[in-house]
């Protein structure tokens, strides 16, 4: 926790720069039609092209000469032009509410488009929103904010990856993750490892290294029509991230400093029984090496009880300091920012450090030539990544199992780290699989070093009044260096661990590079007639991806405690390489009729290297298109007066996707191991039967929407309905192992999604000192698996939990069902019990069935923003409904007598009557005393999945911030332009939740299609902290 020491330092280590302004400045105030000041309005001197914006009191200063023209604009208001006739005046300008809303959003290829012209759904979230409550992964801030975008995260702590699914999954085996574009360049967001049922670590994802402070806005292109121009890689939607440049906010130099310090504690989800102690069948244990069975006698009232969870888990701390310099000149703007993040997890040996440097500049080199360049570098250092799942290397599993009267500190050992001698595990029980949590916490040798360089540039040349040419190119280069251990079935063999004391070491350096280059020629708006205008572009692009990994695996460390690969009995080298490329050509045409009807048509053809092979007869390319229409009803027909704006939109699109991995079209051979007795060993690579006929899958989407603003824009409503259908999905159809292979790929899968998205925003109070804005979004997505493979077989999409369960795709069911074994039930649905050893035991049905849906189909987000004078309070609630979760934690607690359900209302002595019926039709007898253990040992055992499947509805208090903005009067005369202090919080509890003992989203494999599986990960934390922002 040495990070503590840094807080005081860095928080106040604000170095000060002053800014110089030219003389001849004029000042003024911009008000709305009711005379209230408008902060953030833009004032541009059309002569010098300088621009400023108003401060919080609507005031501005700008340099101007006589006869210059100032243009004042603000979203939602008519633009106003003012000719300067007197330099000494203080101007007060009242803007009129606009009839049209000229909001713009960033859309495909970074073009700003008028919202009203869009025939499809794009949601833009501004950077302020993103950095309000910072998280180590920037997408966390989007949770619940965008209807139709389902974001979940792993139970893997601060380094975890985030899963984003837009409008449902469209492919059985694809990642179903959107395409991420940062400043025009696609970035890699590969999942770098996930935990299996027997353990593993979350390797993080590409996006987790992007710094939230550098984000200017995020646009989510939800539908196919929005994403179609990006082609096959955008079949799951696009998330466009624009990073901050200098902006036009203010001339000269600006400095922005911020600090955010967040403390995280585990939440109070874990509620075990605390009344029965260590032992079996009601008898106290005499075996000191069995601390995990809470089937002993009732604890006497004076017994000291321990909250072992809070003993083991620490207070996590994440501190972000950032400083940004901006410079604006007549020719352009530049922004440089540096951000440092230091964080420790609720397992404080798990650390994360990140330094990010970001340089963005936009320069108008001549009237015709504009260049934008951006370089982002960051280095991330991770240590002690916590192992999830049922693994001897996980601290999370056994800590939940200690009986109530056992103090887990008894297992610290004399060295204080869970070892007998400083190196070897002090085993708490006789089972080598049951790890001492202190050992797993303190002897974790895992570390990951990541270096990432993202560079992008765009050069635009205006050929003439109508035509421009633009080149956009860049790359994303990641180097990840893993120091890891490996082991059987994902069990990570930490040296010293009882499971495998010598341990293994694994070191790997992986470089992932991807390049994008696009060249296009477009028009700057051509008026064909007075009513009819055209805009468009035609382009060509290429995307290349290359990854290379070099690793060394060392088996069996020799000198105890020395964690280097040379210190192993033997080593094996590993090398992996892959390269793929997509070349494309595309065109976009937009027609505008009287600024009232807009039609956009796109076409794109992609060629895939991954689908190319000598002699391949099926195509290696695909052509697809989209069309979308936007009709401004409020401009075309007479609408009731309360409706200030109404727009109807609709679109249709086709995309292709799933071109997949390179080298998968032909059978190859490779050498295995390092030979035997001097002879090389060779075999067929992989267990998949290659299929040379594979083509991309097709995804068609239709979308309609209605966008309305009412009561002078105080209330707005946006509704969208969509249907999409994937055909010819590339399915990894399981083959009988007797074929020699486990799967083959075929273009057979079919899946549909349909859904509704509603966004309602309202300004409830709008007074001078007091305002209240509320927003509510709702989304429901219904997916349906139409076809899995030629025989309609159930497909396993992801491994499940320890029970006989997995996440599957079954025809006629939604995608991603939890599939597993169930209770045997009679016609009336009652669970059938059978007397075994005199105890009624619930019986298992041998046939597996659908037990629930791993992905919640319905989600809501509700936010409130209350401002009073300089204070503002923001609260956001997120809810998900209709999903289920299969929980290893609850199963384990039931088996070990730790679950509250194992203690009936009157105590175990009184007993309980299980729901159900006996096999002969009679009533189920009472289960009491030691029989309760026998009952739960069987009912919660691994072969009945149903017992541990819970409905998983919840509403979470997901974000909170209480912000104080220092008044201008206080700051006047200082170098500080604005100052904000905020109390911020993340994940602060639940309004309600269904599943006991765990967070409803404590998923183990959230970064895969394997949703809805809880496999004993890190407890999810509640965070609270302080945020300071200064602008100089």
């Amino acid at each position, binding site marked *: 926790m040495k990070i503590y020491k840094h807080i005081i330092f860095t928080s106040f280590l604000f170095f000060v720069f002053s800014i110089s302004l030219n003389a001849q400045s004029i000042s003024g105030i911009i008000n709305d039609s009711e005379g209230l000041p408008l902060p953030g309005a833009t004032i541009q001197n059309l002569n010098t092209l300088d621009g400023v914006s108003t401060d919080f009191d609507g005031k501005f200063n700008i340099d101007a000469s006589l006869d210059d023209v100032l243009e004042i604009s603000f979203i939602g208001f008519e633009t106003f032009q003012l000719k300067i006739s007197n330099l000494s005046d203080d101007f007060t300008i009242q803007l009129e509410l606009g009839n049209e809303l000229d909001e713009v959003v960033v859309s495909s290829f970074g073009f700003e488009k008028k919202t009203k012209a869009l025939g499809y759904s794009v949601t833009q979230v501004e950077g302020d929103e993103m950095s309000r409550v910072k998280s180590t992964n920037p997408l966390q801030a989007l949770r619940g904010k965008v209807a139709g975008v389902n974001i979940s995260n792993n139970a893997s702590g601060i380094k975890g990856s985030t899963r984003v699914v837009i409008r449902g999954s469209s492919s059985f085996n694809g990642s179903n993750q959107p395409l991420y574009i940062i400043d025009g360049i696609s970035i890699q967001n590969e999942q770098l490892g996930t935990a299996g049922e027997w353990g593993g670590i979350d390797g993080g994802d590409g996006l987790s290294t992007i710094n939230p402070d550098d984000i200017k806005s995020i646009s989510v292109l939800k539908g196919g029509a929005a994403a179609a121009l990006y082609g096959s890689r955008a079949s799951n939607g696009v998330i466009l991230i624009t990073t901050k440049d200098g902006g036009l906010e203010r001339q000269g130099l600006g400095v922005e400093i911020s600090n955010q310090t967040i403390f995280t504690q585990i939440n109070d989800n874990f509620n075990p029984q605390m009344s029965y102690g260590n032992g079996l069948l009601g008898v106290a244990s005499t075996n000191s090496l069995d601390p995990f069975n809470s089937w002993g006698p009732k604890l006497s009232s004076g017994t000291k009880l321990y909250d072992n969870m809070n003993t083991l888990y620490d207070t996590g701390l994440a501190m972000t300091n950032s400083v940004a310099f901006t410079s604006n000149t007549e020719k352009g703007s530049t922004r440089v920012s540096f951000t440092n993040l230091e964080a420790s997890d609720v397992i404080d040996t798990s650390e994360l450090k990140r330094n990010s440097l970001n340089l963005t500049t936009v320069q108008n080199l001549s009237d015709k030539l504009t260049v934008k360049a951006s370089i982002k570098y960051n280095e991330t250092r991770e240590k002690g990544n916590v192992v999830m799942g049922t693994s001897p290397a996980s601290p999370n599993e056994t800590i939940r199992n200690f009986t109530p009267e056992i103090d887990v500190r008894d297992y610290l050992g004399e060295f204080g780290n869970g070892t007998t001698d400083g190196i070897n595990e002090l085993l708490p029980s006789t089972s080598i699989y049951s790890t001492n949590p202190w050992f797993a916490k303190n002897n974790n040798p895992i570390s990951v070093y990541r270096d990432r360089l993202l560079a992008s540039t765009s050069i635009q040349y205006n050929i003439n009044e109508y035509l421009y040419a633009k080149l956009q190119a860049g790359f994303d280069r990641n180097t990840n260096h893993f120091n890891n251990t490996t082991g*059987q079935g994902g069990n990570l063999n930490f040296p010293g661990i009882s499971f495998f004391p010598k341990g293994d070491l694994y070191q790997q350096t992986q470089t992932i590079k991807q390049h994008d280059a696009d060249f296009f020629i477009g028009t700057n708006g051509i008026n064909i007639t007075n009513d009819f205008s055209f805009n468009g572009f035609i382009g060509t692009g290429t995307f290349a991806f290359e990854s290379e990994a070099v690793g060394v695996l060392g088996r069996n460390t020799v000198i105890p405690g020395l964690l280097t690969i040379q210190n192993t009995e033997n080593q094996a080298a590993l090398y992996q390489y892959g390269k793929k490329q997509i070349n494309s*050509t595309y065109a976009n045409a937009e027609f505008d009729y009287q600024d009232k009807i807009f039609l956009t048509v796109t076409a794109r053809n992609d*060629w895939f290297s991954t689908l190319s092979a000598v002699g391949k007869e099926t195509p290696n390319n695909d052509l697809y298109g989209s069309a979308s229409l936007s009709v401004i009803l409020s401009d075309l027909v007479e609408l009731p007066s309360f409706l200030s704006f109404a727009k109807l939109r609709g679109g249709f699109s086709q995309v292709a996707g799933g071109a997949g991995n390179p080298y998968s079209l032909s059978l190859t*051979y490779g050498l295995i191991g390092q030979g035997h007795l001097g002879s090389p060993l060779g*075999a067929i690579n992989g267990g998949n039967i290659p299929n040379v006929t594979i083509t991309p899958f097709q995804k068609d989407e239709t979308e309609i929407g209605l966008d309305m603003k009412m009561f002078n824009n105080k209330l707005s409503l946006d509704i969208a309905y969509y249907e999409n259908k994937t055909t010819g999905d590339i399915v990894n159809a399981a083959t009988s*192992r007797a074929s020699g292979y486990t799967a083959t790929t075929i273009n057979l899968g079919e899946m549909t999604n349909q859904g509704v998205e509603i966004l309602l925003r309202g300004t409830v109070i709008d007074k001078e000192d007091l305002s209240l804005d509320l927003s509510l979004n709702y989304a429901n997505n219904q997916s349906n698996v139409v076809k899995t493979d030629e025989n309609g077989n159930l497909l396993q999409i992801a491994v499940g939990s320890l029970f006989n369960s997995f996440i599957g795709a079954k025809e006629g069911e939604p995608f991603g069902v939890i599939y597993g074994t169930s209770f045997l039930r009679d016609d009336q649905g009652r669970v059938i019990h059978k007397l075994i050893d005199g105890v009624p035991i619930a019986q298992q049905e041998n046939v597996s069935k659908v037990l629930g849906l791993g992905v919640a189909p319905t989600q809501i987000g509700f936010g409130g923003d209350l401002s009073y004078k300089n204070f503002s309070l923001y609260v956001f609630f997120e809810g998900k409904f209709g999903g289920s979760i299969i929980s290893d934690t609850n199963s384990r607690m039931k088996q070990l007598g730790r679950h509250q359900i194992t203690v009936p209302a009157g105590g175990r002595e009184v007993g309980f009557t299980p729901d159900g019926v006996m096999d002969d039709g009679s009533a189920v007898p009472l289960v009491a005393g030691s029989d309760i253990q026998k009952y739960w040992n069987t009912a919660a055992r691994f072969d009945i999945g149903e017992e541990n499947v819970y409905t998983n509805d919840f509403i979470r208090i997901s974000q909170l911030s209480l912000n104080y903005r220092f008044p201008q009067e206080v700051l006047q005369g200082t170098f500080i332009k604005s100052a904000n202090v905020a109390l911020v919080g993340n994940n602060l509890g639940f309004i309600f939740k269904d599943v006991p003992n765990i967070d409803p989203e404590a998923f183990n494999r959230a970064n895969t299609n394997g949703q809805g599986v809880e496999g004993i990960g890190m407890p999810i934390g509640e965070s609270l902290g302080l945020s300071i922002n200064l602008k100089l």
Partner: protein
Amino acid sequence: MKKLNILLLILSFALVSCDYDKGFEEMNVDPTASTSLDVNQKFAYLFLKSASDEYEYTYTEVLCAAQLVQQLTHQTFPQSSIFSLREDLLTGSWDVAYVSTIKTVVDIIDQLEKDGNTGTEMGIARIMKAYIFHKIVDAYGDTPYFDAGKGYIDSNFRPAYDDAELIYMDMLKELEEGVAQITGSSTLGNSDIIFGGDTTKWKKFGNSLMLRLAMRIKNVDAAGSSAWVAKAISGGVMDSSADTAMMVHTNGPTELNKNAWGIHYVRYPRSRLGKTIYDWLQAKNDPRLNIIADPSNTYGGNPYGFNDEDLSAQGINVGDLPYTHVNPAISRADQPRMLLTYAQTAFVLAEHYAASGDHATAETHYNSAVTSAMNQWALWDSSFALSSADINAYLAVNSYDSANYNELIGDQFWVASFFDFFEAFANFRRTGFPALKPFGGNPAHPENLTNGTIPRRMIYNPAEANINKENFDAVISSQGPNTRTTKVWWDN
């Protein structure tokens, strides 16, 4: 505007006429893999993988077969001691063989056929194919055979299950033809990591396997059995310990090189010697007790028919699990694995001659077999070499007995097949010896699913019921339910 239109036209033409997939076919060729492979490297992999696969050996041979024949126990996985069910253990051999050894041997035969090879190498491949399949058929009964491993070659994703009898007949035919194809030396060179290029030994191996298979079908096809036994003997079976087929293992560099038992021994420290074999060796004063059992703990064998809870209830500290371990001196990763031994061959010959009334020849083979089985342990560690005097003294007490040859040979075969648990299990099922009692003679365990009887087979991967439904349903209706009590064809 006109200029603009022309420019756009030119540009559009340029874009459309580009060669957008130039170089893609070359790019999509994996630079780290080859589309072909020298057959010798495939052979070497086949030999090693046939001898030792950690998963297969741990799951199915040790945790199932070794408990069923009451040689080892593992209290964490007591299902084959109390006859309850844990599917993944029982399916292990089936799951592994098809996607490794069977796939490889089918690929080798395909390559040899394409090369027009009808000689020694093809002969060796066919013998290996029979060797790999006989273990699968013996464990599971009817199983995909004729169409197996051809997912790529024939795009057969869901092969039919073939009748065990047809498979047996075909394996015998393959052995006969395969042995006949072996002439002179092979081109395997140092890839022949079983016999080091000695093709005579390959012939003996093929004939000895033929003898094993022929004897296996004795109870269901007496005439066929005799005919094939005669063929095997006249072809020439193994006749000394030097003919034994085995794999020499090394301690790394990878797990693949290691003896699977050596890996298991480190990783699964709750393995113990079974009470049945411990008591048998002790009662006979068998010098092999000191070889097989860990001399440092003389608790005795772990009893059968109990799980941890039962043992706890008896006052046993299941943490320490005070039963004798297998001797660590025979549990190293660099020790050999027997594929088919001379001792096993000689015992089967002894049985054959005894049954035909030629007890003199039977006795000769019996004595050779016991001697070879005793000497065999010197291959693990030279310190285990027994003196002729010791062996003769043992044989004097455990001498051939024409009145009780079945039990005598069956018991000795069982001990001689320690570590070759599948073979011990097959021979026990056919001969009924050793006369193992369910649960080691202890009361039937309440969780047993076999009506208290010793299971007779492993089970197919239940996933087949989904993935290969039609064929799976067909085999269930012809062979019987996919349970441990359904018997394989020759087990009657």
